[in-house]
């Protein structure tokens, strides 16, 4: 089993849908420890992606879909999340450039490159209470699952499960990056919105295959 362009397109579509559904939840999380626009920003971005999806040619490879997502998010999301997610999709696209069917190794490369892109721009480490707290365990789980002989779907599934845990794990933390860092102790008890959107996006990557 490989991840194809059909998968990439389905992933993007489900991502847009899930983000739209959680727009107001993400805003609420961000209102608690940020400026209340994370859902708004992500929804604007994925809405724009949907509008441009028809630009992807019929014989496109997955990396072309990821590149479209990258450039669209960079040019429409703004805020912190725009450049961070934009870079993630861009680096992911570069990691699997030209490959039509992503095997287990390619799947792990894709996830790793995405995470590395975010770290490159945002310089966050685990425990800073950012989206990286979802990405790091997700990538670790993906690597482990591949080593254990998992399929791409197994890998995505392990990553999504780990991201769920990672997002939850941000709740008790004090933030050291992003707007929540201004809050000091008052950030405790709130989930990081970017970790939550990461969790939703990685879950969507699995759900489109499972369905």
């Amino acid at each position: 089993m490989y991840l194809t362009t059909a998968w990439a397109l389905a992933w993007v579509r489900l991502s847009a849908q899930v983000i739209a559904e959680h727009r107001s939840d993400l805003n609420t999380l961000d209102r608690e420890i940020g400026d209340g626009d994370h859902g708004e920003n992500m929804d604007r971005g994925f809405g724009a992606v949907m509008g441009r999806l028809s630009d992807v040619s019929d014989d496109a490879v997955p990396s072309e879909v990821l590149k479209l997502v990258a450039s669209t998010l960079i040019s429409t999301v703004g805020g912190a999340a725009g450049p961070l997610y934009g870079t993630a999709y861009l680096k992911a696209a570069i990691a699997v450039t030209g490959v039509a069917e992503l095997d287990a190794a390619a799947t792990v490369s894709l996830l790793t490159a995405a995470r590395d892109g975010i770290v490159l721009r945002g310089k966050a480490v685990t425990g800073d209470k950012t989206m990286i707290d979802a990405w790091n365990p997700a990538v670790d789980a993906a690597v482990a699952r591949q080593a254990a002989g998992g399929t791409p779907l197994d890998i995505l599934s392990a990553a999504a499960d780990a991201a769920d845990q990672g997002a939850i794990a941000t709740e008790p933390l004090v933030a050291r990056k992003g707007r929540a860092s201004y809050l000091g102790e008052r950030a405790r008890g709130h989930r990081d919105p970017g970790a939550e959107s990461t969790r939703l996006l990685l879950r969507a990557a699995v759900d489109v295959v499972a369905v």
Partner: protein
Amino acid sequence: MKKLINDPSNVVAESVAGFALAHADLVRVSNDPLFIVRADAPVRGKVGIVSGGGSGHEPLHGGFVGPGMLDAAVPGPVFTSPTPDPILAATKAVDGGAGVLHIVKNYTGDVLNFETAADLALMEDIDVRSVITNDDVAVKDSLYTAGRRGVAGTVLVEKIAGAAAERLDDLATVARIAEKVNSFVRSMGVALTPCVVPHAGEPSFILAEDEIEIGIGIHGEPGRERITMEPADAIVDRLLGPILEDLPFDSGDEVLLFVNGMGGTPQIELYILFRRAAEVLAERGITVTRSLVGNYTTSLDMQGASISVLKLDAELTTLWDAPVQTSALRWGK
């Protein structure tokens, strides 16, 4: 939430359109991508200055576009940094061959998006330098935060760097002066009420009828501490304390005192703050030789204010006094 708006998603576009109509003598507006440039941009041989960030802080930054201050302003959605595209387009529109300075408030989103735009501009052979403003002493500038926020002191950086560019200083000099202003200014704010972001329709945080937030950010981000309401003079003392501690303001210093309204506080209150702040500075032997009072870096309809103190030297004083022709700041010539 009651606001004088139409569709919340058109707030920025319609407001900028009104701004362009009202100030056609000073500015032109590009709608797609959205940015505001001074009417005569690009000015040949002059360093172009571009600033920008989320909307909702008006007159920052569009109100400061014009001779002697900014060449362009890039308004993002409300409280959301603009994306690199309009920043790049604005940068190109104001490049008069002497390079472009980006003045960026220190927020992760602003920094990242301006960074990308600067990279793209460099690829098009435009010499871009960036200065990150971070005057807010409410936030500890340490490894454990995203660093100090850029707040009202940004206005002073823009005015003074703008004057340097207007007299045709080169890019390195304009950048040096902007850095110097940033390093000489400290600010801290207080909120009496939260602000309401149009698309959210709900307050950004909740303050009880007798609570205020000391060290508030300009997006309704919570500040240092929430305390029970106090008289204005006591609040001024709370704001000035960390400001004066942070930068060694010494007896004998000359300063610019800037009392900035957050948008919903009337002028009559701002001058009450000014009075006390000037008194405290006088007690410390610090002389207020320049002043600015008004709504210059706002947080939509938030009630509250911030105080900024800028240490002046001859260079900064001369540049502050230089003519400026923008919709929000205007003097000389």
